[in-house]
């Protein structure tokens, strides 16, 4: 049998959609001008840039001039958080975030902590939902930023963003949210959700890697962290990545057009996977919230099983999955997200994240459901934790 090549790691990154590649291609060899140049080549590039800006804005109900393009989600998070922190240093030094943020936010917050800012990491429920009451209680007079992710990259929990936005607005504090995982999967509305700053990245929605965006509500002022030619309102100097941005724009356009249908499709796969796994494997559990989760995310744990082994065994069988976030694949610490849920160490080491895209099929899920129990069984045979139960 030919080994299948099934990609179930769409929260790590996604295949670039063929239509997106097609949209990008002319900007490599034909319309390759620098968008800052005065000549025709430059004006063509500029036009493409601005059209893409409008498409990205439309996905989240923003105005085009509220979008700046960046080099990815991490950079957007850094520009937003440090940009607010440095700009408002004299006003205050307190920042509120959650305990389950992506490292792009978490490590940025820790870096600020070292520089003298004070951080509150709000806890989450055992199902991974941020405690908004604790969040509101932790607001101080000198709180200058609230940054809480739109949805979580490991366990897929959707956060009460609108509620947090309202709290932030009520207290007059800027609210940033990392919506990298939500984009293209659930509706994002910066106006309805009272969002002041929002992070996006193209490669999670079938766009190219290395392009991100930051939504900055009109009137919000940031101090730049990268200096240079003054591109993107002085917040992200560098020759604009026109082809990448065009791909991002196209990816947003597709995502916006088919949002509901794609979400339904992914949700069907997710439910099939969750029900199938929990039914066929004893001592298997779902991490995160049963329903308040991204349509494409399933995150399991299996008593006595370590995650990396499971992922590698599944890879041998032709399935690309992950233990949690791709970033932490090479680290030894258990996932800070799973630990925040209150899991024990050996449980937190045993997670399997399966994340779908619109390109996955029911047949792929079925093949997975046929394969997984055998692998779990094999690993449990080796496991002292399973045998000692």
């Amino acid at each position, binding site marked *: 049998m030919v080994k299948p090549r099934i990609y179930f790691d769409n929260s790590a990154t996604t295949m670039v959609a063929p239509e997106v590649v097609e949209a990008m291609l002319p900007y490599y060899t034909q319309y390759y001008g620098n968008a800052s140049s005065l000549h025709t080549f430059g004006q063509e590039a500029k036009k493409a840039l601005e059209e893409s800006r409008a498409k990205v804005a439309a996905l989240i109900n923003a105005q085009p001039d509220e979008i700046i393009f960046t080099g990815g989600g991490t950079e957007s998070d850094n520009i937003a958080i440090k940009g607010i922190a440095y700009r408002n240093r004299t006003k205050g030094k307190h920042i509120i975030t959650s305990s389950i943020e992506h490292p792009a936010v978490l490590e940025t917050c820790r870096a600020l902590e070292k520089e003298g800012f004070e951080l509150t990491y709000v806890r989450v429920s055992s199902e991974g939902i941020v405690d908004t009451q604790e969040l509101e209680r932790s607001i101080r007079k000198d709180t200058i930023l609230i940054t809480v992710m739109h949805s979580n990259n490991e366990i897929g929990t959707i956060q009460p963003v609108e509620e947090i936005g309202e709290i932030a607005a009520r207290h007059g504090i800027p609210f940033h949210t990392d919506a990298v995982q939500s984009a293209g999967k659930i509706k994002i509305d910066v106006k309805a959700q009272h969002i002041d700053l929002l992070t996006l990245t193209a490669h999670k929605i079938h766009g190219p890697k290395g392009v991100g965006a930051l939504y900055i509500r009109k009137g919000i002022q940031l101090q730049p962290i990268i200096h240079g030619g003054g591109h993107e309102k002085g917040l992200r100097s560098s020759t604009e990545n026109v082809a990448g941005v065009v791909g991002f724009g196209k990816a947003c356009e597709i995502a916006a057009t088919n949002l509901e249908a794609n979400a339904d499709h992914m949700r069907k796969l997710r439910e099939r996977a969750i029900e199938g796994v929990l039914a066929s494997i004893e001592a298997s559990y779902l991490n995160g919230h049963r329903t308040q989760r991204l349509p494409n995310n399933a995150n399991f744990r299996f008593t*006595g*099983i*370590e995650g*990396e*082994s499971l992922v*590698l*065994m599944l890879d*041998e069988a032709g399935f690309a999955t992950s233990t949690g976030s791709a970033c932490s694949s*090479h*680290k*030894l*610490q*258990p996932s800070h997200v799973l630990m925040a849920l209150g899991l*024990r*160490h*050996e449980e937190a*080491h045993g997670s399997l994240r399966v994340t779908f895209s619109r390109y996955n099929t029911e047949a792929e899920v079925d093949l997975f459901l046929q394969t997984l129990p055998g692998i779990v069984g094999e690993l449990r*045979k*080796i*496991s*002292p*934790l*399973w*045998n000692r139960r």
Partner: protein
Amino acid sequence: MYSPVVMDHFKNPRNVGVIENPDGVGTVGNPVCGDLMTVYIKVENDIIVDVKFQTFGCAAAIATSSMITEMAKGKHVDEALKITRQNVADNLGGLPPVKMHCSNLAADALHLAIKDYYKKRKGVDIEVEVHPEDHTH
């Protein structure tokens, strides 16, 4: 990321299991760092005639466990005490740096099993090389 030998031992681990009434048992690791392994030995005339393991851990942890059982089997216990972590890693064709430390515990588990053998069968308390900073048990 892993060498072909590691992947082979990971996918087809040798000597998995438990020895009933073992002459020595050694357990190392800590679920905190995601690795836990137990090595069982059967000894006759100071020769390790059988060895089995159980491991909860990443591919490196499983492969080092499997490898150590192959390296130890048939050896005099005092020879087996000389097997180092580095020997295991070398025999596996190397390990990723991040895994050298934390998941390469098999040699320690074997040494503890031999220590257990000395204690249980000979009433002797020997010193063995383990890396306490890497695990508690």
